[in-house]
């Protein structure tokens, strides 16, 4: 990065944070601090919901997923539009009607205090864990490739988001997210245009897409019913539906984004905006990754995209240097041969009635397998010289492209995209963690303080800052899974199913009371923990994590019904107040 990149980065990031904090510095009403302005319209809500979900890892990891495994990951989002329709029709009207600050407040009114505390506790646990990943994810990648200090990157971004989130609460979060999403859309579009423009002469977008397809990178929909496959139409529709329903309907970081606003209509339209745009947006980011794969077929590509990790181990000893150099030479040779097979295939497919096309395709795929084998050899070599080495490099593909191929100024803009996404999702998380701690814990144990509005706002600010510091500390001292987007989704899936089960019982099973659902939730959560922890010991339990959402939810609902029948209570203790 040169001074121009730094100027673009600092002006955009610090400018947006300062604007958000300054504009909302007088927010001293609890309602505005926790739910945002009463005049908020659907566009702001829609963008805020989108920014909350789209963290930095969306823009770092997902192009890498497209590069490595193709665009099949888009199926993960197939349940999302259906879930948002259900949230609009069922969840949102009830939250609005009751005027709750948190989703768990509703559980207290529908069931009892212990179920409310359980819901809030599960949220704080899973979101508190995820908060560490959200702040760590971009920091580790940016620190690695840019040579920044990891601790200072984590602390810098963490403090920036704490300042404006604590100052203006929910209103500052929504306000800054609008600008941050503007930067993100502008930056990603710029990267896409430059990528297409930098394809080799004579190779258009159409040809590049055909190459990606022939290499198996464009299999968007997989109808397979093999339960071992992580992303299929069915895991996306069913697992994804439960994951999204739980995330959007019961996770306070999302609920808080849409329960405010001028009217019920604004929240609903904001959610429908996301239902329409989310899949096309994820598809575009994955397609960018698949096109990056084609781009690097014609450009000198490193054998291992986390070049810092590779160089560090290569320079550790003379033996390593010789071994790693041999792998690099082999990779370069094979890549050149692969380019020839790709060009031959392109020529063959353009010939009318060409019988040479199948043979050319087979040769191209064989060359690709050989190159991929060298990639695997590079990972194995890294692991052999250091069992603790980071052997997964897909998260470094897009950032490598940004730094190698984009002009100065645009590099700063794209780094700003990553940091803006990190700040946007982090702000929603801190806002929700602070709100839940204030409303569902602090006010529960200090009922007299509930009437003192200024004290409530002060408490919410302190708790928001507290969670910010916890997230920074967690990010500084914890080690995380290598594939960061999956780490977030796995943490979510472990908790979300049971949480959704509690809410579905609350909405649809009026006969089931608090004690029954509480016991059902505790047992179901234990079951999901057991499934996750024992998956490597019993192959039959090694299923896609998306199924945890469905299993946890079904177990909670069924056990709730069973316990209620066992308790012999046929009426619901509803405590609306």
């Amino acid at each position: 990065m040169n001074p121009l990149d730094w100027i673009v980065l600092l002006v955009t990031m610090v400018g947006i944070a300062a604007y958000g904090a300054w504009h909302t510095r007088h927010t001293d009403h609890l309602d505005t601090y926790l739910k945002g302005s009463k005049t908020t319209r659907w566009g702001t809500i829609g963008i805020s919901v989108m920014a909350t979900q789209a963290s930095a890892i969306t823009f770092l990891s997902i192009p890498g997923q497209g590069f490595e495994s193709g665009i099949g990951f888009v199926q993960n989002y197939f349940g999302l539009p259906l879930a948002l329709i259900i949230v609009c029709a069922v969840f949102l009207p009830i939250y609005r009607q009751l005027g709750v600050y948190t989703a768990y407040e509703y559980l207290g009114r529908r069931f009892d205090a212990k179920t409310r505390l359980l819901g809030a506790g599960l949220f704080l646990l899973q979101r508190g864990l995820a908060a560490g990943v959200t702040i760590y994810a971009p920091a580790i990648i940016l620190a690695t490739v840019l040579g920044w200090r990891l601790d200072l990157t984590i602390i810098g971004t963490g403090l920036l988001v704490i300042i404006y989130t604590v100052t203006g609460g929910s209103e500052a979060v929504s306000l800054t997210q609008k600008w941050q999403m503007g930067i993100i859309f502008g930056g990603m579009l710029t990267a896409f245009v430059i990528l297409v423009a930098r394809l080799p002469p004579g190779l258009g977008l159409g040809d590049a897409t055909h190459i990606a397809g022939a290499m198996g990178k464009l299999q968007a929909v997989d109808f397979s019913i093999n339960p071992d496959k992580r992303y299929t139409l069915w895991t996306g529709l069913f697992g994804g539906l439960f994951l999204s329903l739980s995330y959007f309907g019961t996770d306070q970081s999302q609920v808080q984004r849409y329960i405010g606003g001028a009217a019920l209509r604004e929240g609903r339209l904001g959610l429908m905006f996301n239902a329409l745009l989310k899949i096309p947006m994820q598809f575009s980011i994955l397609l960018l990754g698949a096109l990056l794969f084609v781009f690097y077929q014609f450009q000198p590509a490193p054998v291992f995209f986390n070049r810092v990790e590779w160089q560090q181990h290569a320079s550790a000893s003379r033996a390593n240097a010789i071994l790693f150099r041999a792998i690099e030479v082999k990779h370069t040779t094979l890549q050149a041969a692969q380019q020839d097979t790709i060009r031959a295939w392109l020529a063959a497919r353009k010939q009318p009635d060409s019988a040479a096309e199948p043979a050319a395709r087979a040769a191209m795929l064989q060359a690709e397998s050989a190159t991929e084998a060298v990639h695997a050899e590079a990972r194995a070599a890294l692991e052999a010289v250091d069992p603790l080495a980071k052997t997964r490099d897909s998260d470094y593909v897009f950032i490598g492209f940004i730094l190698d191929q984009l002009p100065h100024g645009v590099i700063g803009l794209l780094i700003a995209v990553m940091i803006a996404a990190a700040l946007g999702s982090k702000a929603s998380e801190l806002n929700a963690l602070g709100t839940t701690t204030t409303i569902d814990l602090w006010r529960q144990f200090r009922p007299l303080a509930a009437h003192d509005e200024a004290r409530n706002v002060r408490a919410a600010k302190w708790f928001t800052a507290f969670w910010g510091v916890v997230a920074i500390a967690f990010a500084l001292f914890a080690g995380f899974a290598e594939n960061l987007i999956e780490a977030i989704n796995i943490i979510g899936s472990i908790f979300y199913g049971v949480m959704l089960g509690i809410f579905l019982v609350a909405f649809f099973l009026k006969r089931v009371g608090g004690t029954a659902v509480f016991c059902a939730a505790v047992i179901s959560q234990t079951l999901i923990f057991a499934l996750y922890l024992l998956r490597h010991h019993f192959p039959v339990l090694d299923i896609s994590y998306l199924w945890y959402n469905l299993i946890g939810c079904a177990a909670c609902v069924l056990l709730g019904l069973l316990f209620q029948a066992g308790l012999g209570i046929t009426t619901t203790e509803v405590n609306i107040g």
Partner: protein
Amino acid sequence: MKPAPAPTPDDASPGVPGFRTWRGVYLFVFACFVLVVVLLAVFSRLFA
């Protein structure tokens, strides 16, 4: 004991041109989702 709150009726006008009820909006979004999945399946087949 009080009854659970009933959801707001979905037949209220959404205030979106071309739609008289929220059910219409949901149906439109659902139809768009089906269309997107079909287009993705066609895309996969076209470039396989």
